[in-house]
C-alpha cells in the first residue's frame, strides 16, 4: 500500500467533512459568546440545506441557493432570538423547538413541492458548488510530496471550503479587534455592565444571532450543494450537535474551534476509511463504535478530563433590564 496517497485521501475527506462542522461551530460561537445558548444549530443547518437544495434546483444557481439558505436560517435564528431575547424564554427549549420544526417542515414541504419522498431533485452544473483548481495545481502535481499535497489536498475544493477557512481569521478579528466584538464578548459575560455603558443588550444579541443564522445557513448550503447534489431528509445527521461539542472543546474561541472541527472531521474520515479493516492489536472494530466515537470523545472531553471548558458567564440567562 502506498502510504502518501492514502494519507492524502484521508486528509482530503477530513477537510470536506469538517467544513459543515466548522461553519456551524463558528455560527454557534457568535451566539454563545453573546450569552445566547444555541442548541438549534442542527435545525438551522437542516432548513438551510433544504432551502439551498430547492432554490438551486428552481433557479439553477448555487449562489441563489446559498442566499436562500442564509435567509431561511436567519429567519429561524430570529425566532430563537425573539423567544430567548425578547421574551426571555428558555434558550434550550427554544433551540429544541427549532430543531423539530426544521426536521418536520423540510420533509413536509419537500414532499409537497417535489414529491420525491422528502428529498429535492438532483442539481448539477451551475446549481452546485464545483471544485476550484488553485493556480498552478496541474503544473506542480509532479513535484514529489509538496506538489502532491498542493494539487490533491489543498486544491480542488469548492469555493465554500476556502471561504469557511477564511471565516476563521475573520471571526477572530471581529471578536478580538473590533468594537462590536468587544461588546459581543462583554454582553456574554456581564450584560449589566454593557447596559450601564448605554449599549442596547437586546440589539447586540440580535445581531449576534443574525451572524449565527448566516453561518449556519452557509453550512446547510455546503451540505446540499457542495458535499451532495441536493437535499436529502435529515441530511445533517447530528452535525449540529457535533459542532456544538467542537465549540465547547474549543472553549468558545475561533482558532481552536477550527482545530476541533478538523479533529472531528478526521475521526469521521477515518471511520469511513477503516470500515471493516482490522486494526493491529485490537482486531476488527465494529462500525458502530467508530460512528459513536465523536460522541464518546465529546462526553469525555466535557467531563473535563482534557482541560476545563468554562462557558460565557451570562450564557443561558435572559437579561432583565430592571426589576
Amino acid at each position, binding site marked *: 500500500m502506498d502510504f502518501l496517497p492514502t494519507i492524502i485521501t484521508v486528509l482530503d475527506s477530513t477537510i470536506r467533512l469538517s467544513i459543515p462542522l466548522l461553519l456551524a461551530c463558528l455560527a454557534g460561537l457568535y451566539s454563545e459568546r453573546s450569552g445566547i445558548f444555541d442548541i438549534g444549530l442542527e435545525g438551522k443547518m437542516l432548513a438551510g440545506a433544504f432551502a439551498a437544495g430547492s432554490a438551486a434546483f428552481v433557479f439553477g444557481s448555487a449562489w441563489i441557493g446559498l442566499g436562500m439558505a442564509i435567509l431561511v436560517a436567519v429567519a429561524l435564528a430570529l425566532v430563537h432570538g425573539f423567544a*430567548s431575547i425578547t421574551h426571555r424564554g428558555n434558550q*434550550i427549549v427554544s433551540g429544541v423547538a427549532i430543531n*423539530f420544526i426544521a426536521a*418536520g417542515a423540510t420533509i413536509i414541504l419537500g414532499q409537497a413541492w417535489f414529491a420525491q419522498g422528502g428529498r429535492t431533485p438532483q442539481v448539477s452544473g451551475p446549481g452546485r458548488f464545483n471544485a476550484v483548481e488553485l493556480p498552478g495545481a496541474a503544473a506542480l502535481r509532479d513535484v514529489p510530496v509538496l506538489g502532491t499535497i498542493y494539487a490533491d489536498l489543498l486544491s480542488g475544493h469548492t469555493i465554500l471550503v476556502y471561504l469557511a477557512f477564511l471565516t476563521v481569521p475573520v471571526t477572530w478579528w471581529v471578536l478580538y479587534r473590533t468594537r462590536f466584538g468587544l461588546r459581543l464578548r462583554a454582553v456574554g459575560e456581564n450584560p449589566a455592565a454593557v447596559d450601564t455603558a448605554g449599549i442596547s443588550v437586546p440589539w447586540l444579541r440580535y445581531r449576534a444571532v443574525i451572524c449565527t443564522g448566516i453561518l449556519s445557513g452557509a453550512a446547510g448550503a455546503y451540505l446540499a450543494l457542495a458535499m451532495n447534489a441536493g437535499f436529502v431528509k435529515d441530511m445533517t445527521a447530528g452535525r449540529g450537535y457535533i459542532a456544538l461539542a467542537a465549540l465547547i472543546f474549543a472553549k468558545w474561541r475561533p482558532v481552536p474551534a477550527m482545530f476541533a472541527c478538523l479533529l472531528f472531521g478526521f475521526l469521521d474520515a477515518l471511520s469511513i476509511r477503516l470500515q471493516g479493516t482490522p486494526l493491529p492489536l485490537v482486531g476488527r472494530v465494529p462500525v458502530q463504535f467508530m460512528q459513536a466515537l465523536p460522541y464518546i470523545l465529546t462526553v469525555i472531553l466535557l467531563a473535563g478530563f482534557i482541560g476545563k471548558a468554562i462557558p460565557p458567564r451570562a450564557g443561558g440567562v435572559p437579561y432583565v433590564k430592571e426589576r
Partner: protein
Amino acid sequence: MSVPYAKLPRWVDYGLIPLINLVVAFAVAGLVVLLVGENPLSAAAIMIEGAFGRGQNIAYTLYYATSFIFTGLAVAVAFHGGLFNIGGEGQAYIGGLGVVLVVLNLDAVFPWYVNFPLAVVGAGLAGALWALIPAYLQAKRGSHIVITTIMFNFIAASLMVYLLVDVLKPLGQMAPQTRAFAEGGQLPKLNWIIELFGARIRSAPFNISFLLALAAAFGVWVLIWRTKLGYEIRTQGFSPKAARYAGIGEARIIIITMMISGALAGMMALNPVMGDQNRLQLDFVTGAGFVGIAVALMGRSHPAGIVPAAILFGVLYQGGAEIAFEMPAISRDMIVIIQGLVILFAGALEHMFRPPIQAFFASLGNPARSNGAAREGQA
C-alpha cells in the same frame, strides 16, 4: 418591569394561558397545512375521526399515549430538579435492552404476570443506568447535562444497532431483531375495556402497561409533592443556592433525579416491546423520547397535565396516520412540526401572552388594589 403585576387566578395560570399557547401552536400548524395546499379544517376533522372514530382507533390512540405518559413524566421529573433531560430517547432505547434481558431468559419459564414486574425492574434499571453517567458527569464534573444526554442518545443508537446486528439477532435471520417472545413475554391487551362500551376491536396493541403508566403518573405526583425527596428536588430546581444553604446535597439530588427520570423513560420500552411487537426491533422508540419534552411542557410538569397532554399527542399520532392516508401531501412528519410548535409556544414562548393577560386582569380588578399589587411587583 413595565407590565402591571397581577396575581392571576389559578384557572388562568394553569388553564387559559396553556390553552392559548396550544391554540396558537395549532393555528401555525394549520398554516403549514394550508401552505402544502390542503384544507386544515378537513385535516383536523380527519384526525379526530381517525383518533376516536372507532373502538379500534381509540385503542391505538391510548397505546401511543401510554408511551408518551412515560417519557413525559421522565422529562417532568428532571424539570422539577432544574435539569433538562433530552436523553429520554436513548434511555428508552436502552430500557428495551433491560426488557429483553429479562424476557429472553424467562419467557418460556414463567407466565406474564411474573415476568412483567421483572421486566419493569429491568427496563427501569437499564434506563436509570443510562441516565446515571450524564448525571454523574453533571454533578461531579460540571459537564452540561443537555449536551451529554444528547450525546448519549447517539451512543445508545450506535450501541443498540451493534447489539441487534451482532449479538441479539438469532442465527439465520436477516432482520436485525431478537427472536419473537413466547407467551410469557407478551402483555395482555386491554381492548376489552373499550369493548365494554359497545365498540368492536379486531386487533390493537393497547395493553396493560397503560395501567402502569397511570400508576407511574400517580407515583410521580406523590414523589414530587408528598415526600421529602420531592421537596428537595423542587428546592434544587427552584433555587440551587437555597438548596445548598439548606444542606441539600446537590450532587445527590442531581443523580437521584436523573435516575428516576431515566427509569421512567426506560419503562416506556415495555409498551411497544412487550405489548405490541413482542420482540426488540431497531428504532422501536420512534421519537417518543422527544415527544416527552413537548408533553411535559404542555402538561406543565404536573401528572394531571401530562396524562391529557400525552393523550393529545396519542391523538396526533393515530389521527396523523389517518391524515397521511387521506391526504398524500401530508405525511406523518407533520407531527414533528406540531411537536416543535408546541415546544416553542408552550415552552420557549410561554410568557409571550402573559403580559397582555395580566394587564387585562389588572384592569378588571379593583383599581386601587391592582395598583398596590403593581408597586409590590416592582419592589
